[in-house]
């Protein structure tokens, strides 16, 4: 095998402990953690290899989305009630208490939508271009690998075959 002709190399592992060993082996041959891709059909919270990428702005973005929704709700009700002022039931033209209901709903709607948009963007969904993936993941295998490897292939091959890992490449 030569470097430069392989776009990705990975190993398939039967259980998370094996995947952890592979990740440590890869780090030992000089691959940085950010370059390692780990794919599984379920999240493994208790293992060290999944403790990366946890920090997110999503909660703050949801809050900002909610604030935007609140503003939109306030503006929509107030603007429309003043644009065509029709008295009803002796209530004020801009009726704050009823408007609060609309303002609340739009706040929550915008918070939810901004959460979902953030999820799609940060998780890079939907993705059409095929990337590093193997359908064996759906059979329960854990994929540990890297794209565009710069480290010599034989070192990678040793790291990715620990604990019974199956080595595969993508040309």
């Amino acid at each position, binding site marked *: 095998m030569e470097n430069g002709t392989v776009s990705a190399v990975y190993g398939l592992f*039967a*259980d998370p402990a094996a995947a952890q060993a592979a990740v440590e082996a890869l780090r030992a041959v000089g691959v940085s953690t950010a370059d390692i*891709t*780990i*794919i*599984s*059909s*379920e*999240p*493994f*919270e*208790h*293992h060290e*290899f*999944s403790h*990366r*990428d946890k920090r*997110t702005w*999503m*909660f703050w973005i*949801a809050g900002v989305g909610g604030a935007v929704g609140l503003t939109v709700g306030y503006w929509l*009700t107030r603007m*429309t*009630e003043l*644009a*065509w002022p029709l008295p*009803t*039931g002796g*209530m004020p033209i801009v*009726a704050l208490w*009823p*408007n609060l*209901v*609309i303002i*609340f*709903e*739009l706040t*929550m*709607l915008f*918070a*939810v*939508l901004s*959460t*979902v948009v*953030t*999820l799609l963007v*940060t*998780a*890079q*969904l*939907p*993705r*059409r271009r095929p*990337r590093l*993936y193997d*359908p064996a*993941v*759906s*059979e*329960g295998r854990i994929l540990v690998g890297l794209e565009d490897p710069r480290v010599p292939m034989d070192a990678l091959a040793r790291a990715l075959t620990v604990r019974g890992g199956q080595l595969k490449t993508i040309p």
Partner: protein
Amino acid sequence: MTDATDRKITDDLLRPLQTTSAGFWMLVAFLGAIVAAGLGTWAYQMYRGFGVSGIRWPIFWAFYVTNFVFWIGISHAGTLISAILRLVNAGWRRPVTRCAEAITVFALMIGAMFPIIHLGRPWLFFWLIPYPNQRGIWPNFRSPLVWDFFAISTYLTGSVLFLFLPMIPDLALVRDRTTGWRQRVYGGLALGWRGTTKQWHRLESAMQIMAIAILPVAISVHTIVSFDFSMAPVPMWHSTIFGPYFVAGAIFSGIAALIIAMAVLRKTLHLEEYLHPVHFENLGKLLLLMSLLWTYFVFAERLTVWYGNEASEMAVFRVTQRGSFAPLYWTMVVCNFVIPFPLLALRRTRTIAGCVFAACSVLVGMWLERFLIIVPSLGHKYLPYSWGVYRPRPVEIMITISTFAAMALLYVLFAKLVPIISVWELKVGAQPVAAKEHEEVHALWRTEP
């Protein structure tokens, strides 16, 4: 967790998608026929005029609004159960969550049809949407019906997303196990999901936020539905208790629907190893709790009315307690409290069959409760000369029946096309607890390792 267990879970939960029996087609045809009949009945009503229903002066809301409140109430099962249980980290929610979320989405869709069905000019329902138009007029944001529109739209959007987002990894699973056009469809729906650590973390964060956000929305939705009644000066409608009362009733009927749906799925899809009697026991305890809460609200409301002895309220009170509505009223009390209470309180009867029987009784009782809130009050307002009697007509009965068929049909199709138990969440639940956590537990409780 061993490879074999993992494979077994995947195989068992994907089997309904892969094997289709003749019984499935017959069921779909049967339910589809009833739904088609319901749609045809609605078309007939739009063509002939609203007079084909039993609505009359002064009872202008009856079956359709009853169904509206009933189905929106049922929709509180899912999101509340799966959101609350997710937030308190209750592990037993894992097999239950998608069943519950699916009930929410479909019940909402059906419930949201009724504000359109009950309109005198339903083809103009879009006038409730605030968009700039040449009519030069906006919707009246003071109206509880406009609040309904916003609340239900928000809740439906939130619930669909709450159902769909955790479905993405399972759709990817099905994608990897199918070929041909099915693979393209599931692949498209799975949005190219791979399962990297980053994607899992983002998904978990999003679900956390959604669970926190959907709870106040769910509570607000049925509160706003209750405002349709409490904002009008009608005897026994204009009550401050309606918001919490309706929310409690909604959760009550929602849990009942969930129990029934889970029992049916367990039987028909052979999910005995995943839906255990303990799941039904836990939901049965929640159902018991809600039954007691519902009874408490009804008692508080009725005692207040009876004690206050206000003439127009007492007219409505008497007609439900002892008058023409008494048979329905006492049936409701039996169905919502007398039957479920012993069945669910005693461990010996809190079996799957016991829970299902109690749940069916609760659904009947809660439908009657909605009816009995609406019709007796409207028929006995302030001026006795204008009191009236309501009789349902075939149009309304047919449409009501077809909504149950529609719910069943949507659910059957959903269970056929998507794994009804969340595969990845179940696998996470089956993961062995890390050794470090064992040590922490033992240190905390001073038990022997």
